[in-house]
């Protein structure tokens, strides 16, 4: 049996979402000296971080600093990259997600991910896109799907725009709507952690603002880790910020502190725009 079994068996849908499942200071996810490699190349070097529940955590740093690779190690997507492997431990509620008995598919249901470009499934309707994550885990009851699809679309602030055309193809939506659809799809299976990899990088300013506002709502239910290129965005949306540079985590702390009184001069140089 999987280590994650007790949680994985919690398949009964939360018909009404509990406000906050945990107290704010509780650590939901923790990495212990995580290194991520592509073959012989080390992209992330021994990063130890803690992600408190119901907080937004921003990972910032210049291109190629390893922040996206690190993010992908948190739901075992990195190991799907060519020659991708990691060392160290990633703990979700105290359990090592790289443990030999952990099922990666079950894990990814608990740690969802939104990508840089909107990735709706083009052959599916809006409804089916949101329901996809539930159906693949064997939840097919129509009434349950209806409820979760509506809730998830509402959480993603998309319900009012699409409720009249749930059967339309997901490709009929605009880019910003598609990205919110992907957020709805990610939260539909009720994950514990939501990872966002530069979710607004391909969107216009208005759509970006909507998604940033959304993060404030989402963090009531989920623990959020967001990779962003945009320092203003990190400053606006996150509670804590970690600065990555050349594969190492240089500095981590409350966002206000990182942006006002960084301890490290590389951090200061980056946030003041002197490189990166």
């Amino acid at each position, binding site marked *: 049996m999987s280590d994650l079994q007790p949680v994985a068996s919690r398949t009964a849908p939360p018909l009404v979402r509990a406000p906050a499942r945990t107290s704010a200071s509780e650590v939901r996810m923790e990495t212990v000296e995580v290194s991520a490699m592509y073959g012989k190349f080390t992209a992330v070097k021994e990063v130890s971080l803690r992600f408190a529940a119901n907080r937004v955590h921003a990972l910032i740093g210049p291109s190629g600093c390893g922040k996206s690779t690190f993010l992908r190690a948190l*739901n075992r*997507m990195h190991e*799907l990259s*060519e020659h991708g492997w990691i060392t160290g431990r990633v703990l979700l509620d105290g359990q090592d997600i790289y443990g030999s008995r952990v099922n990666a*598919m*079950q894990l*990814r*249901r608990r740690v*969802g*991910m939104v*990508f840089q*470009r909107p*990735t709706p*499934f*083009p*052959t599916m309707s809006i409804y089916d896109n949101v329901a*996809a*994550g539930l159906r*693949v*885990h064997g939840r097919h009851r129509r009434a349950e799907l209806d409820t979760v699809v509506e809730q998830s679309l509402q959480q993603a602030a998309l319900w009012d725009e699409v409720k009249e055309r749930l059967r339309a*193809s997901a*490709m*009929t939506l605009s880019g910003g709507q598609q990205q919110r659809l*992907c957020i709805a*799809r*990610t939260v539909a*299976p009720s994950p514990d952690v939501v990872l966002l990899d530069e979710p607004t990088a391909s969107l216009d300013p208005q759509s970006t603002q909507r998604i940033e506002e959304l993060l404030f709502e989402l963090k009531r239910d989920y623990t959020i880790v967001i990779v962003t290129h945009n320092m203003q965005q990190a400053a606006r949306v996150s509670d804590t910020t970690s600065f990555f540079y050349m594969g190492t985590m240089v500095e981590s702390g409350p966002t206000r502190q990182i942006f006002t009184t960084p301890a490290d001069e590389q951090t200061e140089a980056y946030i003041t725009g002197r490189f990166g």
Partner: protein
Amino acid sequence: MNHRGLRRGVSNLMVGLVTGVVLVALLPLAFILVNLALQGAGSLSLDFFTRTPAPAGESGGGVVHAIVGTLIIVGAASAIGLPVGLAAGIYCAEYPASRLTWTTRFVADVLNGTPSIVVGVFAWAWIVATQRHFSALAGSAALAILMIPMVLRTTEEMIKLVPSSLREAALALGYPRWRTSLSIVVRTTLPGIVTGSLLAVARIAGETAPLLFTALGSQYLSFRPDQPMAALPLTVFTYATGPYEEWHRYAWASALVLILVVLVLSVGARLAIRRRFDFHG
């Protein structure tokens, strides 16, 4: 010198050239179709579709035996060739780094370049010679071998066109690898795969050489795959090389029927797939 006028002139010249080249490319197709219709349509009648040939020297009769034969032989070839080609194509696209993929791809490319008559000889040596009689199934086997590399390569190329971000999105949602492949990746590119498969079916439906010494051909309506069987390309060949004027007209008509059969098959399959997977953009 009027700059804008020069640019407009060059533009018109290029558009004219490109249009001309397109016409040149379409011309043979139009010529074949028109010629077939002119020469063949006159001989088409209800009898032609419902009766077997009249004895040599007498007039009348039809090619129903060859229509049925082509449907059976091509159907059996597709039943073997499509699943193998599709599965191998999916494998090659999903495991591009594996040694087996490299080998499969290489073999498929060599096979794609092999003349069909060589494949016919191969089927003759392995099936006809060992069983000591000609059979429709031997013809189907030869056609299936021709079909597999075509289906394999188009399937692989189509799947490769699906952006990897879609695959990642499915995996990140907790999809197992096999469901990601089938219900997301293959499903997304299904219209392309169907088109590729139809092209392969159409190609083998017109093959004559491999059938000459496998299915052999027959004057009678037959449903037995272990016996010699008629097929439209063979009928065209027999009638076209025969001594009678009427046979030549039948050859044209048979060729027209062959094209109609292929057309009906592909249009039908495409309509069915479009109705089933209707999605925009």
